[in-house]
């Protein structure tokens, strides 16, 4: 107990002694024992309550007020004195404790006067309770007590003045009472559940006390007997109020006892939610909020990990910070009526658990950021142990050899084909032993589709992390590119072979026979000039044939006019030689040579196909430029049904077109003619 408390108790004992002496020596006190006992009960209940409150750092304000009520209560005892002056002073000062009481009541539980109205009410109460009795004493005869000493303080004996003062007194008293009730009702309606539990006993007893006081104020003038009865009632009603205050204090004391339970509960709490409910139970505040501090991000998060604006949350409420090892780890947001000391005790009790949970939150937060980062990477990832057991993974179900729920805990040897598993384990071993990144490609058949993956294996402590990328598409493209190159080379080889064969079988044979014929003619020239002439004529014929064949060969290799005069001129010759009518639409300007050549061969091949298969009656060739592309179309009205995959002519064209980043499309529905469309990029 503090020094102030001891002083109050000391004063209380001294005043009790004086009061008792006055009561028991009084010659106008009819029931001294009862009066003494009743007043002692009331006074000491206030003193006791005051002392208890004084001992609590947060309640010293009440302590003073309650102590003041209790100590000034003894002032009324002065009126028991047989000495006229002392008696008169007692009659003047008896109402002072009531003023302190109203002050205490209106500042409960916050400890200060909140609004101007409350302040005015309390001030008025002090004035009327201090001044009112003085006025009565100055203007009025001491009535209603025949044994009492004479009123020593009387200045003018005027019943009119007393009535007038009484009226003002009653009006002001009514104002004080009404204002007090108004304030208390408002406070009650605004109060939260834990606050109401503290307010309830205080308000109930106070309401009774005030009700009795009002009654007494109205009827005491009418009948002294009734006034006496009401005064006694008031005495006990007021006396019960500190008991109510004590109950309120006791409630927080009980809550404090629950801190011990809290420690146990927190120890058992497995997650932030159960920690929160333990804290709510311990502090008796179901609206209590909990926030964790994330020091690396300088942010508050709630128990679910969502970001939280502590300042906005604690609007109209109070925040108690929880520290651990000198660093803030969390905060409660609680009702401001909550006992600060209790909140402090709970904070201290919970600091260890909250520090632990805070670090879990921190990890969870960084983990979720980590996850988000990982999820943004399209690669598959696996965490594996040295023996090939899958520990964790990230990726799409479609990329896994087994369902995800079966994967973790399984061994690669049981899931992957033996050869792949073997290589994988070798890679893991290598990565774990050397710390170098091991890489390798492997193929898997997933859902019946052959896919190629590229794995990079990285050491992470005792475990290996695999970063796996699906490279099937790239592999396929590479494969296509390779085979198209091979086809181009083959087509070139084939063309050269054909050229060689044509030269050998055609022109060369003819030249050989020509040479023979010339020798023969030479030999026969003298003996048989006619035969020589016949031989020379034949040789001449043979020579014309050889020249014709050479010309055709050369044109097939590359028509000179194409490079010299462009597509339009070359197509004119091509169209002229076609067996069906050919319409040609070509822009007058030249296209890039490579595009012209490709277009020429596409059209040439298309026309050859028309001649061979289409049975067409007309062909339309159009070359246009559209949006930076050269579009070549050859459409016939023949039988259709051409298959670009069959026959090397069209597939050779595909390679030629694709080599220029072009696209070749063949539409050839049976019976609907054939339309070959080639597009080339052409700026």
């Amino acid at each position, binding site marked *: 107990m503090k020094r102030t408390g001891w002083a109050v108790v000391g004063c209380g004992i001294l005043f009790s002694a004086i009061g008792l002496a006055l009561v028991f020596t009084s010659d106008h006190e009819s029931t001294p024992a009862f009066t003494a006992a009743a007043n002692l009960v009331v006074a000491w209940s206030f003193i006791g309550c005051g002392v208890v409150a004084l001992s609590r750092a947060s309640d010293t304000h009440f302590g003073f007020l309650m102590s003041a009520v209790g100590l000034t209560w003894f002032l009324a005892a002065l009126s028991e004195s047989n000495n006229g002056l002392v008696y008169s002073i007692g009659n003047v000062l008896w109402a002072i404790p009531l003023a302190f009481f109203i002050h205490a009541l209106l500042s409960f539980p916050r400890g200060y006067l909140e609004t101007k109205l409350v302040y005015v009410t309390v001030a008025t109460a002090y004035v009327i309770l201090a001044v009112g009795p003085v006025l009565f004493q100055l203007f009025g005869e001491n009535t209603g007590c025949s044994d009492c000493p004479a009123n020593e303080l009387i200045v003018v004996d005027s019943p009119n003045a007393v009535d007038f003062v009484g009226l003002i007194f009653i009006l002001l008293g009514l104002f004080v009472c009404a204002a007090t009730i108004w304030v208390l009702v408002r406070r009650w309606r605004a109060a939260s559940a834990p606050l109401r539990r503290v307010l309830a006993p205080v308000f109930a007893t106070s309401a009774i006390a005030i009700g009795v006081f009002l009654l007494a104020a109205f009827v005491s003038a009418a009948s002294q007997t009734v006034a006496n009865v009401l005064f006694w009632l008031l005495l006990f009603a007021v006396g019960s109020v500190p008991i109510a205050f004590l109950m309120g204090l006791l409630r927080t004391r009980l809550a404090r006892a629950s801190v011990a339970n809290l420690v146990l509960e927190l120890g058992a709490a497995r997650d932030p939610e159960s920690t929160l409910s333990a804290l709510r139970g311990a502090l008796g505040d179901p609206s209590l909020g909990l926030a964790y501090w994330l020091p690396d991000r300088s942010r508050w998060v709630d128990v679910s990990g969502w970001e939280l604006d502590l300042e906005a949350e604690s609007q109209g409420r109070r925040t108690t910070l929880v520290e651990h090892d000198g660093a803030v780890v969390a905060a409660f947001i609680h009702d401001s009526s909550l006992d600060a000391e209790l909140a402090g005790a709970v904070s201290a009790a919970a600091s260890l658990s909250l520090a632990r949970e805070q670090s879990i939150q921190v990890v969870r937060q960084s983990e979720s950021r980590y996850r988000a980062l990982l999820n943004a990477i399209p690669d598959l990832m696996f965490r594996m142990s040295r023996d090939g057991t899958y520990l964790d993974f990230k990726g799409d179900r479609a990329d896994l050899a087994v369902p995800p729920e079966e994967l973790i805990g399984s061994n690669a040897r049981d899931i992957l084909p033996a050869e792949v598993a073997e290589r994988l384990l070798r890679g893991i071993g290598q990565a774990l032993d050397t710390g170098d990144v091991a890489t390798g490609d492997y193929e898997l058949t997933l859902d019946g589709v052959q896919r190629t993956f590229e794995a990079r294996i990285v050491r992470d402590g005792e475990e290996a992390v695999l970063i796996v990328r699906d490279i099937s598409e790239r592999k396929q493209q590479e494969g296509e590119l390779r085979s198209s190159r091979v086809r181009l080379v083959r087509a070139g080889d084939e063309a050269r072979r054909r050229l060689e064969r044509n030269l050998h079988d055609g022109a060369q044979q003819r030249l050989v026979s020509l040479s023979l014929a010339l020798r023969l003619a030479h030999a026969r020239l003298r003996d048989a000039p006619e035969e020589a002439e016949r031989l020379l004529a034949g040789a001449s014929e043979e020579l014309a044939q050889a020249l014709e064949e050479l010309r055709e060969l050369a044109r097939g290799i590359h028509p*000179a006019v194409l490079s010299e005069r462009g597509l339009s001129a070359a197509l004119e010759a091509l169209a002229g030689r076609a067996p069906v009518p050919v319409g040609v639409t070509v822009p007058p300007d030249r296209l890039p040579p490579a595009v012209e050549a490709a277009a020429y061969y596409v059209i040439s091949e298309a026309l050859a196909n028309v001649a061979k298969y289409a049975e067409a009656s*007309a062909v339309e060739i159009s070359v246009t430029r559209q949006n930076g592309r050269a579009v070549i179309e050859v459409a016939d009205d023949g039988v259709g049904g051409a298959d670009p995959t069959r026959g090397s002519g069209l597939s050779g064209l595909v390679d030629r077109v694709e080599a220029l980043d072009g696209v070749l499309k063949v539409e050839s529905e049976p019976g609907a003619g054939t339309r070959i469309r080639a597009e080339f990029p052409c700026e």
Partner: protein
Amino acid sequence: MRVVIAEDSVLLREGVVRILAEAGFDVVGQAGTGDELMLKVRSYSPDVAIVDIRMPPTHTDEGLRAAQEIREKHPGVGVLVLSQYIEPAYAMELLAESAEGVGYLLKDRISDMHEFADAVRRVGDGGSALDPTIVSQLVGRRRQDGPLDELTAREREVLGLMAEGRSNQGIAERLVVTERAVEKHVTNIFSKLRLPPATADHRRVLAVLAYLRG
């Protein structure tokens, strides 16, 4: 008739010179390049220049360009272009404005000395000589139905020979008929193709070619 020859292959050039000399032509100059040809044409004012289409330095269409230049600067000199290949596009370039004193033949034609000399003479006289390959391509080109189908086989033959640049007399000799008969065919052809009659041979060539190219 004075002739200048431009041909980079000396062997072929000498052969042509010999053939022409034998046929009674006076070969006044020989050239191996386009520039040389222009020099010779300027210096010797020949009646006809026989030009190989491919010559140094690029071996593409130097002869053709030289031919155009000669026709522009020396309108009195006939130009006969020889080519290893026959390209209708080149023929049309040469004949773009006029068929007067122009010829375009496949080199192979040289071997038929008589025909060749005839063509050179026609060109030198301001007529024209178009290679039968081109003509047959033009005449034989497949078309949607048109007046050409109305011609008889004989008329087609006459049409082709007209397109080659031959005169009625030349056509008559070639077909071994009278000139009168040829004239009749020509009139028929022109009326069937709804072409206005043309008297001069070189104008006739242009009209027929324009029709055939359609």
